[in-house]
C-alpha cells in the first residue's frame, strides 16, 4: 500500500521554547479521507505547516508519496495542494488571476492553467466572480477560492485546514460534496475541522492530536464503536412531573416536556420507547444530544488532560485539590 503521508518521530520546538510537536508518528494511506482533529493549540497547524514546508521541523522526517519534504522539498511539494486556515491570497487580485498564477507556480503552461482555473472556479460556483476583485467576495466565496487554488495543480494529496470555518450550512454542504467527489476521483484528503459532524460524515480514518502528541489514531467506524453511552433529547407530547425510572438507563427531566436519556450501547431504543409507552409517556421527536464523535473527542481530550494534570478540573478552576 502506497502511503500518501508518512510522519516519522516529528518534533517541533519554536524559538520561544514552545514544544508544539513531541515526536509524532502518523501514516495516511493513498486515497484515504483522513481527519486530523484536536483542540486549539494542539499542534495540528504546526503539523500541516511542516508537511507543506512552511514550518521547519526540529527533528524527524515527513514523506509525501515517499518523497522527503526535508530533503527533496520541490518534488514533495509538487504532490500537495493546501487550503490554509487563514485567508492568504492577494485581496486586490482577481480570482481567475489567483488560481491561474498558482498553476503557473507548479509549472503548468498558461493555456492549460487558464483552462484549469475556469474549470475549478466553475465547479466551486465562483465563475461569475472570476474577474471581480477578490476582497469583494463573501466569506464563503473566499474559502471556495482557496479550494479552487489548491486544486489547480491537481494534487495527489489535498490538505484542508478548517476549510468550512465561518461558512453557512448550505455552502458547507456543497463544499463537502465537492471534496467527496475529489476523494472519490483518487485524491487523498486530510481534513482538520472543528465541525466534528463534518469529520464523522466525510472521513474514514482519524487521528486526534493534543498537546503535541497523537492520542488516538484509528478508523472512524472503529472509534465510533467504542462509544459506550449515547445521550438523546426527547421532546414529549404532554408535560410530566418527574423523570420516569427505567432499569439500566439514566433519565433526567430537563423541563416539563424535555427528557434527556442516556443509553448504554447494549440497550436498544425500542426498549426505551416501549418502557415510556408503558408509563403513558409519548415522544413527539428525538435528537442526539451531541454528535457521537464529539462525545468521544471530548472524552479523549479530557482523559489526556487528566493524565497530564492529575489535579484535574479542580486545579484548573483554582480550587485546592
Amino acid at each position, binding site marked *: 500500500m502506497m502511503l500518501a503521508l508518512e510522519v516519522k518521530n516529528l518534533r517541533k520546538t*519554536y524559538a520561544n521554547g514552545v514544544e508544539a510537536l513531541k515526536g509524532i508518528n502518523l501514516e495516511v494511506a493513498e486515497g484515504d479521507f483522513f481527519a486530523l482533529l484536536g483542540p486549539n493549540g494542539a499542534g495540528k497547524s504546526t503539523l500541516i505547516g511542516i508537511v507543506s*514546508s*512552511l514550518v521547519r521541523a526540529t527533528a524527524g522526517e515527513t514523506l509525501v508519496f515517499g518523497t522527503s519534504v526535508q530533503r527533496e522539498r520541490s518534488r514533495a511539494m509538487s504532490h500537495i495542494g493546501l487550503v490554509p486556515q487563514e485567508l492568504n491570497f*492577494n485581496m486586490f487580485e482577481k480570482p481567475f488571476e489567483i488560481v491561474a*498564477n498558482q498553476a*503557473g*507556480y507548479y509549472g503548468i*503552461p*498558461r493555456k492549460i492553467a487558464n483552462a484549469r482555473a475556469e474549470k475549478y472556479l466553475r465547479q466551486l460556483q465562483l465563475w461569475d466572480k472570476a474577474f471581480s476583485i477578490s476582497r469583494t467576495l463573501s466569506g464563503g466565496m473566499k474559502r471556495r477560492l482557496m479550494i479552487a*487554488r489548491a486544486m489547480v495543480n491537481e494534487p495527489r494529496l489535498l490538505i484542508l485546514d478548517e476549510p468550512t470555518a465561518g461558512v453557512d450550512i448550505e455552502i458547507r454542504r456543497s463544499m463537502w460534496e465537492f471534496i467527496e467527489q475529489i476523494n472519490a476521483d483518487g485524491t487523498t484528503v486530510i481534513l482538520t475541522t472543528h465541525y466534528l459532524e463534518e469529520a464523522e460524515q466525510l472521513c474514514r480514518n482519524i487521528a486526534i492530536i493534543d498537546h503535541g502528541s497523537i492520542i488516538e489514531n484509528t478508523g472512524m467506524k472503529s472509534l465510533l464503536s467504542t462509544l459506550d453511552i449515547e445521550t438523546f433529547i426527547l421532546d414529549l407530547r404532554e408535560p410530566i412531573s418527574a423523570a420516569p425510572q427505567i432499569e439500566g438507563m439514566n433519565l433526567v427531566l430537563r423541563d416539563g416536556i424535555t427528557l434527556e436519556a442516556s443509553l448504554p450501547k447494549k440497550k436498544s431504543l425500542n426498549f426505551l420507547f416501549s418502557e415510556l409507552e408503558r408509563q403513558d409517556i409519548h415522544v413527539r421527536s428525538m435528537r442526539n444530544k451531541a454528535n457521537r464523535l464529539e462525545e468521544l473527542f471530548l472524552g479523549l481530550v479530557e482523559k489526556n488532560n487528566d493524565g497530564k494534570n492529575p489535579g484535574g478540573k479542580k486545579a484548573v478552576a483554582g480550587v485546592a485539590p
Partner: protein
Amino acid sequence: MNARINWVGYQTIVRKEITRILRIWGQTIVPPAITMSLYFIIFGELIGRRIGDMGGFTYMEFIVPGLVIMSVITNSYGNMVSSFFGAKFGKHIEELLISPLPNWVILCGYVTGALVRGLMVGAVVLMISLLFTHLQVKHALVTISVLLLTAIVFALAGMINAIYARKFDDIAIIPTFVLAPLTYLGGVFYSISLLPPFWQKVSIVNPILYMVNGFRYGILGVSDVSLLQTYGVIISAGILLFTWCMWLLHKGTGLRT
C-alpha cells in the same frame, strides 16, 4: 522537467509583478514622473541657468543621467520592497513557498519585476528630460549595462529589506535614511571634483557614485571615476547581495518558522 517548471514559474511571477505595476500605475509610474519633472524645471531650468556649465555640458544635460539613474534606483528598490513585503504581510507569499519552485527562481522572478518597474520609470523620466534638453547616447552598451546592473543591485537590496521587515515602518527606514542620502550625495547634481579633498575621499565609498557616473559616462562620455571601478563596484555589490538573499531564503528568515 524541472527546467520547464522553473521557467513557467519564473514567467508567472514576472507576469504577476508586471500586472501589479500596471494595475497601480498611479502609484508606480506617475509620481516619479511628476517628481523628476519638478527636478528638471527647478534644478535644470531655473537654478541650472545661473550655475552655467559643468564638465563641459549645460547643467541640465549634466543632471539628466543622474536623475534617470536615481529614479531607476528608487523604483527598482521600492517595487521589490513593497511587493515582497506586501506578499509577506498579506501571507500570499505562501502561494510561492508551498510551490515546487526553488528559491532562486522566486528571487529571479521578483528581481525581474523590480527591474521592469525601474526601466519603465527610467524610460518615462528620460522621455520627460527630452522636453528640456537634447541628448545623444555616447556609449550605448555602457548605458544599458550600467542601467540593468544598477536596477538588479537595488532590487536585491530591496529583497533583503523586505525579508527582514516586520512592519511597514521597517520598509520606509532604509529608503529614507540610507538610500536617499546616498543618492543625493552620489554625484547626481554635481561633479565630486567640486568637493574639498576630504569630502571627495568620503564620496568614493558611496557605491551610488559609481552607478551615477557610469551611467553619465554612457550618455555624456564624462565620469568622475573609471569605468573599471564602476563595473567592479556594481558587479561585486550584485554578487554580495544575491548571495545574501539566497542565504536568507535558504534559512527561511521571516518566511518559514
